[in-house]
């Protein structure tokens, strides 16, 4: 019996889909059987980010409406033999095509076959959100160091805390820019964690390669040298229960002079 984790944020564009794709891939690399479920019906993206778009035959709505079995609709990612599958969302209907009860049933079914079912939640707090959360045992809230994203994350956490079937949500802070934080132009990690007061699951530095990789349909996790990749792998290990320290945001590769300046408090 696996675990179902919903990845949500409230606000759009903070990296829910990217996080789902990468954490899912990282878990598959670590040898777990993973199923990704895209619940953003009408605006599906997860298949594109995973590079599986042109293999879709059936989708989530087909399964729910009984036109095919789950097994038939699942798209297998051939890069990870038998470890990673995707249940794509429908592009032709909208969020109201599925009810929370149907989603719960579907996720429960998937949990029988997979170690982890990662549910990619659409933005917003309406039907799409309710569908995504219905079957989940656990939630990961993604936010970026922006006041608006943190505000929405706070709202979502409030809603998630009311879901009695779920464990307390955990936080991923995405797209941190080290130099901006240092200059005080961006919220820092401590500030966000203190404000939201939930457990921090991981932080991911802003990295252009993430966008490049997404566009190619190859999750960044597949590139072992990227910092974002390591961050996602660390998150996957923390989900598995390992305790992995957070990556430092800014590498200290500065000269002696700047160290002396720092010592005297001159920046």
């Amino acid at each position: 019996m696996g675990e179902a984790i919903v990845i949500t944020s409230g606000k759009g564009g903070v990296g829910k889909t990217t996080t789902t794709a990468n954490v899912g891939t990282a878990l598959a690399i670590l040898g777990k059987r993973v199923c990704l479920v895209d619940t953003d019906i009408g605006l599906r993206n997860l298949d594109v980010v995973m590079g599986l778009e042109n293999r879709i035959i059936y989708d989530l709505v087909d399964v729910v409406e009984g036109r095919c079995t789950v097994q038939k609709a699942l798209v297998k990612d051939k890069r990870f033999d038998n470890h990673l599958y995707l249940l794509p969302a429908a592009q032709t209907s909208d969020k109201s095509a599925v009810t929370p009860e149907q989603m719960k049933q579907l996720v429960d079914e998937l949990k029988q076959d997979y170690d982890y079912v990662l549910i990619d939640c659409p933005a917003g707090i309406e039907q799409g959100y309710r569908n995504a959360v219905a079957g989940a045992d656990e939630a990961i809230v993604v936010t970026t160091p922006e006041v608006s994203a943190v505000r929405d994350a706070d709202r979502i956490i409030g809603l998630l805390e009311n879901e009695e079937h779920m464990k307390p949500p955990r936080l991923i802070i995405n797209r941190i820019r080290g130099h901006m934080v240092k200059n005080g132009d961006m919220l820092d990690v401590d500030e966000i964690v203190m404000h939201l007061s939930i457990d921090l699951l991981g932080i991911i530095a802003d990295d252009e390669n993430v966008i490049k990789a997404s566009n190619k349909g190859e999750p960044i996790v597949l590139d072992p040298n990227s910092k974002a990749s390591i961050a996602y792998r660390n998150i996957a290990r923390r989900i598995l229960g390992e305790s992995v320290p957070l990556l430092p945001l800014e590498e200290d590769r500065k000269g002696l002079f700047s160290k002396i300046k720092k010592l005297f408090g001159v920046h």
Partner: protein
Amino acid sequence: MSIFVELFVEVNVVTKKKQYVTIKGTKDGLTLHLDDNCSYDDLLRELEEKLTVSEKIEPDSPLVSVHLKVGNRYLTPEQEEELRTLIRRTKNFVVSSIESNVLTKEEALEWKRKTEIVSVSKIVRSGQVLHVQGDLLLIGDVNPGGTVIAGGNIFILGALRGIAHAGYYGNKEAVIAASVMKPTQLRISDVMNRAPDYKTDEGNEMECAYIDEHNQIVVDRLQLLMHLRPNLTRLERRM
């Protein structure tokens, strides 16, 4: 034998002398003490008797305010009204207040709700509203977009970054206190105050908000409250 008889007579006299209605004059007017052991009908009868027996007063003499003390008797609103009209009809008296030692359960519960300190341990997040009838003791934060409302005072052990509304039912004496005072809005009774548009880096620690003599919400050091609102000290529940 004779002693016994005497005793019996005396007891008889005492019960007969026992009056249901006692009138006492105080400097604020008259106080009518109404016995709480007799039946309501007996009480009415005697009250009417007492008030009509005494001498006539000129009809244009000033009204005298009367304070009713009914002891351990519960009066329904209808009975209260009956007493008021009876007293008003017979004399130049007007009932200013009725005092009873008895409360109904609902009244007592209502009173408790309005005066108790409700302690809540949670983070009031964006979009959430926490509403209590009495005083609120919040062990946690109010995040931006979150709202706390209390009929009485609001005490926040964490940070207040959202909206707090104290004295929701019109109590202007209510105060808001927080360990970290960074609200988006403060409301006390019907007065409102919002954060300045510029960001300040002041401490904002251990502060309180109250309505001052100009009917404005003022934020100041927490320690001032003991002078401004001595009522906050409550070893027993305030009335």
